[in-house]
């Protein structure tokens, strides 16, 4: 790897005043109750956010206009201790089934509550597509194409 930047995982630790069972249940089955509606890709507002239970379950958003936005899937499912989700949204804001970044959430009883250890890792893989595109700079799939996608997104956002 000749180019130096490897983004560190995003890590968070918080304590919630509930049992691990409750915390796990709310995080997964109750996902749609707390996921911020603003956290959606797509043009239509987010209506519902879902994590389907069990390994292979889908993680997606249902938009007001009926579109379904797939974000990823469940990689590990160990209630009430741990869930690992695949986040397959690339730096270009599109779903890429070949992209694997991992969101791991662990729930550990601590006193009367639960410590939640959160990690979103392998963020550098979001750049792998960009990196290989770099090698084929002149191709449509290269930086030019990537930048067009960025630009399209920017136009949407403005």
């Amino acid at each position, binding site marked *: 790897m000749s180019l130096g930047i*490897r983004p560190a995982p995003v890590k968070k630790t918080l304590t919630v005043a*509930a049992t691990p069972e409750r*915390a796990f249940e*709310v995080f997964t089955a109750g996902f749609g109750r707390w996921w911020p509606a603003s*956290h959606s890709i797509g043009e239509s507002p987010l209506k519902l956010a879902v994590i389907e239970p069990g390994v292979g379950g889908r993680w997606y958003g249902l938009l007001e206009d009926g579109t379904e936005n797939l974000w990823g899937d469940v990689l590990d499912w160990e209630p009430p201790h741990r869930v690992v989700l695949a986040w397959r949204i690339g730096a270009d804001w599109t779903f890429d089934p070949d992209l694997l970044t991992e969101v791991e959430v662990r729930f550990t009883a601590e006193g009367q509550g639960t410590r939640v250890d959160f990690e979103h890792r392998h963020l550098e893989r979001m750049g792998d597509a960009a990196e290989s595109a770099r090698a084929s700079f002149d191709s449509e799939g290269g930086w030019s194409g990537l*930048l067009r996608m960025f630009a399209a997104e*920017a136009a949407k956002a403005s």
Partner: protein
Amino acid sequence: MAYGNAAFAALSDPTRRMVLERLAAGPRAVGEIAEGVPVSRPAVSQHLKVLKDAGLVSDRQEGARRIYTIDPKGLGAVRAWLDQFWDVALDAFKAEVERVANDEKGDAP
């Protein structure tokens, strides 16, 4: 939602995309970048500043020259965005868990 609006805003300009594409081919000084772009050198410097502020390029001093390189992953901004994104999401999660837990306490005799 967007990974760092600054990055997208920076990329919305065709000249800046051109500058970035020049840098994608390898590290360059301002003068070298300006050769491939149909705007003045001061304008290129200005565009580089915007790209740098957006976390898309970085620079280093090499003798008398300042060399610009693309953030190889273009991910500085993405990571910063995700970091903030998860703060907001996990705050909302905590609020919901504790709301549920409190409701249950309230229901208890």
